[in-house]
């Protein structure tokens, strides 16, 4: 009996190690491409949030006050040395595991835009958060994340009050809203601390740019 057990254990170990070895090979082959994809996605999203930006400078000393939500990266967005705002890559728990969002905050203390970096959720329901054709407001064509555009951080950010939830995905809607709010608040605290604000004459021109860009209006109350 004892001999049997050892033999069975050894067989199982052999199969497991073979499987591990082959997985390691595939992982090594695909790792570079996966990293490249997420980097491309991040850069493209940063550009989308701040079209006039010329530089994204990483910030190191911005940490999350909530242990559940982490800031993987934060950038100070600049256009020819003039500040435009902050961009935060924040990861927090959601319905289907961790969700990573890129949140842009402009100098007027409002959301410049939100993009999904990584999200695991139910296809057709919670996954609609990242769908460009799922509208919480069909007549105005506002997507779930689109409703945060130009939203001020002084708003309550409460799902079903000032934030429209995704149909049949209230938990996901709440979690994502919480990540956005936390990243936004942290970014504003950072801006206040470093005294980053809109210079009077520059602010007007930067303003016009973001307005033209943010067609879908917020405030789906």
């Amino acid at each position, binding site marked *: 009996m004892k001999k049997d057990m050892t*033999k*069975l254990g050894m*067989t*199982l170990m052999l*199969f*497991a190690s073979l*499987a*591990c070895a*082959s*997985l390691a090979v*595939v*992982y090594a082959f*695909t790792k570079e*491409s*996966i990293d490249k*994809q997420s980097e491309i*996605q991040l850069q493209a999203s940063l550009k989308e949030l701040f079209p006039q930006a010329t530089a994204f400078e990483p910030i190191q000393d911005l940490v999350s006050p909530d242990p559940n939500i982490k800031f993987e990266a934060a950038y100070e967005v600049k256009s020819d040395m003039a500040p435009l705002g902050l961009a935060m890559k924040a990861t927090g728990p959601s319905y*289907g*595991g961790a969700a990573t969002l890129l949140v842009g905050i402009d100098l007027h203390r409002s959301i410049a835009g939100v993009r999904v970096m990584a*999200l*695991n*959720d*139910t*296809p*057709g*329901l919670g*996954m609609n958060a*990242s769908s460009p*054709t799922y509208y919480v407001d069909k007549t105005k064509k506002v997507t779930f994340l689109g409703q945060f555009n130009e939203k001020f951080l002084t708003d309550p950010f409460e799902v079903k009050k000032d934030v429209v939830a995704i*149909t*049949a995905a209230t938990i996901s809607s709440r979690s994502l809203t919480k990540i956005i709010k936390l990243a936004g608040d942290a970014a504003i605290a950072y801006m206040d601390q470093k005294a980053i604000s809109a210079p009077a004459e520059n602010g007007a021109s930067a303003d016009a740019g973001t307005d033209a860009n943010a067609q879908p209006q917020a405030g789906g109350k």
Partner: protein
Amino acid sequence: MSMKKLYSIFKQGIIFDNPLLMLMIGLCSAIAVTTNVSNGIGMGLAMTFVLLFSEIIISLFRKLIPSMIRIPIFIIVIAAFTTMVDLVMKAYFPDLSKSMGVFIPLIVVNCIIMGRVEAFASKQNLASVIADALGMGLGYTWVLIAIAAVRELLGNGTLAGIQIMPASYQPILFFILPPGGFFVFSLFISLNIWFKKRMEASARNRELVAKKEAA
């Protein structure tokens, strides 16, 4: 092993022993991903890949796998191939991978693969196993695509993300939600049973006619 025998194994999975419509296993992820045709295609291909390679490996090593620990070994093999599919999709089809979400990793616990490996691959030789995996995979894929097409067209007015219905069409959200999934699924199951009975009846008729002629 004659070609004819292989073909009859292959054909089983498409209608007569269709994993979704006749064996009725692996339904949960099938209902979940069939909200969009491209998801249906992606899931079908991913599933066929995992099924094919798991069955091949299990069939090749079937004499070396002690029956007492066969289930853990099956799971290790299936999990390894599923993770490979997941990594490859993330690397080369990031959009598809994003829309499939958690259902690719969940192929590991899909009863179709477990069922075919346990009931078929662990007892048969390589050629019949390949025929079985391809037949079952194709049977799974066509059902996913057909159900996804009905649900997406009625529930969203699109096919694979392309607008088909006129703009005035008000999508019936019911079909995208799980109850609609069950509804369309049951329609397909009854259609398949009807079709199977008809085929069997015509086969019996042909036999009778042949017997009479012989007499």
